[in-house]
């Protein structure tokens, strides 16, 4: 294996992060640093690699110990790379380290001493149980930026509680604010608060690094995903306190209609065709201005709606949304969704298809033009397309060609070059189950 990794040159070149992240929220927070050259060292326990390397294969109890790597054919080489792992750990380094072994802890402390940041998304109390509470971390490295990502934060009576994206969404009010009135919440069909929640955590790390660079001080960011989730719903808390209006009420959530601003139409409308899973196709249409309403009526060939007393003003259209939505649905039903988008966008009306992953990759001309799927070369699985990290910076651009590390890929570099361990000693540590 190569020793010194080839990392992109960026403004975080020379910034080292110890990364005990797993699942999704933790990996995202540190993955935001690699496009700028940070050296993020992802640490996995020996004999139990990151479960995203196995793509949701079973990891229950003793069964976890028998995880085996993928093989494309019975006699082909084993590999530990999957779409999700590749995406979440792009540009990182990988080592194994046994933190339950005293020598493993010594190595970890040495690594922390040479690093700028430490990130973990264990349940509260795990690092304390290792003897690595914030007081100890500060002793090891006074300039350390320590980001802990957990559902409820470490401080407080729920500090040891567990959470995944869907639980954080449920607990915060995010799930409850997505759905049709009178039905169970639809919630979010993916871990919104593992992705966006990871970005919020990543922002905490970046802010900590900036503050450290300005002051020379380390900082402990006890980040709670549920708190960031509630911040996504800020106006609801104000409406509740100022107007006494809770979100737990019969007409909430309102599906895809808009409560505020008070506009109509603002909804999804069924159109021709189904996707490959048999789900109906829909288009979203909204008119926020009188001009857009007039343009919609013109495109639908229904100028008479403009003088229909049910639809003359925005307030009229709001009051008669049910019938208005029926009229628009009748127009969209036999039409193709991208055709509707083009017809209406050409006259300045908000109209877009509800795109799934296939649509965004195969049919989204904008994402293609913006080169959102760069090709990544990987030594185990060859070339593949991956989602690009979106910001475009003119002078210090984000690198988009980092790949996820293969298992233990950077052992020689981390233990050898960073920690100064010779090959004989490294072999002893391997044999002793430390690395």
């Amino acid at each position, binding site marked *: 294996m190569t020793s010194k990794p080839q990392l992109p040159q960026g403004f975080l070149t020379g910034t080292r992060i110890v990364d005990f992240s797993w699942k999704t929220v933790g990996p995202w927070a540190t993955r935001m640093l690699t496009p700028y050259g940070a050296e993020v060292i992802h640490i996995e326990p020996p004999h139990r690699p990151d479960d995203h390397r196995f793509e949701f294969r079973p990891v229950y109890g003793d069964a976890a110990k028998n995880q085996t790597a993928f093989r494309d054919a019975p006699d082909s080489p084993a590999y530990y790379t999957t779409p999700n792992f590749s995406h979440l750990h792009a540009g990182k380094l990988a080592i194994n380290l046994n933190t339950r072994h005293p020598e493993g802890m010594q190595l970890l402390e040495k690594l922390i001493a040479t690093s700028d940041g430490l990130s973990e998304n264990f349940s509260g109390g795990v690092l304390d149980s290792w003897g690595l509470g914030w007081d100890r971390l500060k002793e090891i490295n006074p300039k350390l930026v320590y980001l802990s990502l957990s*559902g409820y934060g470490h401080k407080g*009576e729920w500090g040891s509680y567990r*959470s995944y994206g869907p639980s954080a969404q449920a607990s915060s009010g995010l799930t409850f604010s997505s759905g049709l009135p009178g039905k169970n919440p639809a919630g979010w*069909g*993916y*871990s919104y608060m593992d992705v966006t929640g990871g970005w919020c955590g990543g922002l905490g790390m970046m802010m900590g690094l900036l503050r450290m660079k300005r002051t020379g*001080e380390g900082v402990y960011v006890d980040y709670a995903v549920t708190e960031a989730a509630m911040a996504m719903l800020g106006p609801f808390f104000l409406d509740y306190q100022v107007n006494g209006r809770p979100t737990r009420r019969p007409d909430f959530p309102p599906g895809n209609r808009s409560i505020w601003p008070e506009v109509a139409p603002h909804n999804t409308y069924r159109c021709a065709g189904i996707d490959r899973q048999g789900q109906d196709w829909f288009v979203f249409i909204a008119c926020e201005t009188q001009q857009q309403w007039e343009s919609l009526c013109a495109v639908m060939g229904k100028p008479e709606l403009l003088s229909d007393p049910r639809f003359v003003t925005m307030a009229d259209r709001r009051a008669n949304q049910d019938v208005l939505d029926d009229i628009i649905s009748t127009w969209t039903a036999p039409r193709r969704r991208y055709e509707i988008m083009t017809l209406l966008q050409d006259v300045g009306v908000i109209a877009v298809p509800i795109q799934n992953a296939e649509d965004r990759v195969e049919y989204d001309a904008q994402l293609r033009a913006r080169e959102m799927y760069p090709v990544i070369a990987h030594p185990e699985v060859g070339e593949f397309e991956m989602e690009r990290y979106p910001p475009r*910076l003119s002078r210090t651009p984000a690198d988009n060609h980092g790949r996820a590390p293969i298992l233990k890929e950077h052992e020689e570099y981390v233990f050898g070059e960073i920690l100064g361990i010779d090959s004989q000693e490294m072999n002893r540590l391997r044999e002793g189950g430390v690395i």
Partner: protein
Amino acid sequence: MATGRPSFGTREGTSVQVFDGFTVVELADRRNQFIGKIMAESGARVIQIEPVEGSPGRWIGPFADDKEDPNKCLDYWWYNTGKESIAIDITRKPGQDLVRGLIAQADVFIESTKPGTLKGYGLDYDSVSAEHPELIYLSFTDMGQNGPWVDFEMNDHAHLALGGPMGSSGYSDPKETPIGGQRNHAYNMSSVLATHTITGALFERLSSERGQYIDISIHDVVGISTEAAVPYWLWYNQAALRQTGQHAAVKYRPTTQIMCSDGKLVQVTMPQMPLNAWVQMVKWMEEVGVAEELSDPKWRDDFYRADRLRNGDEIHEGIIRLLSKVTSEEAFHRGQALGMAWAVIRAAEENMDLDHYKQRDYWQPIEHEEIGKTILYPRALHTNDLLGTRPKSRAPHLGEHTSSILKNDLDLDDRTIEAMTKTGVVR
């Protein structure tokens, strides 16, 4: 001119805020206002330049007492805590000169106009950076600065539709509509990524003393936000089914929203449960008389349990029976004690009564003299005194700081300010 060099001390334990000493100037827009809010909550001085009729964000609603008033819009209150407001007509040359003067004093400039708009005013990056190379200039727009859809008309919900979140979210019924969540989520998530980028650019500028241009497309950002959906398509050409309250997946799966005895729903995760937790779970089921076949010792075998969890419904049905006998709060706390990441599906406001967040000092009082009341704001996004994150003051009234900024920052005299006000250049 601001340089971003350290402007504060290094005493350990002081409440040093991360953006202390930085000035952010933003052109008011519904899309970008969360960025300035996050930065203001961590120490930046944020000047919002509004049109003389007020930021578009002032007209969203809801309004205090449901009476439309640009100074009583709760959506605006939330997104603009701690900012200053100056109202300028930037379509006119004198207004453009004022904006140029403010940008000259800024570390960060944020705008969300349609591409090309500011070039016509001489306020594009090339024009202003020539004299101010330290400026970090963010264009935060629907589609970015290029591409065939760059002129699309969008709103937040349209981004959730086009960018993918709605394609994954909805109900376990292929005829039912996809659903987008309520309240500016596309703008919020993109703003978080944008603030991360600005913070990185400020970090870089401490060394280089040079600014740069940043182009962020909300569509690009939302497009990568849907977790494994796109990677799965790119690798396996797998398309997913929307499912009520849980991840879209290739096949329909049992519900994860389970009704408790008090009529409230709990979000469950199917447990990755070690033996001792399993034993406790079965004991709990036995206490309420619903264990049935799960009391059989064969379920103590990890491999058997893992297999049935994937290929059977016995454990899932047992948990449904269990939760039907207990309240949602009992399910939450006792489930957590067993290591289950279960959570009550709460309405947002129900969190305000919980001791946990009070213990974390999450709710911050802000006085609103407009309604004679102090109300509690969540912190955005980190409850952390060393980063300084907390809302400092209420959102500004329309043009509240126009005079003081013109006088103190742009050195204009009272007569000039009065003339500009009369002619509608400022308000």
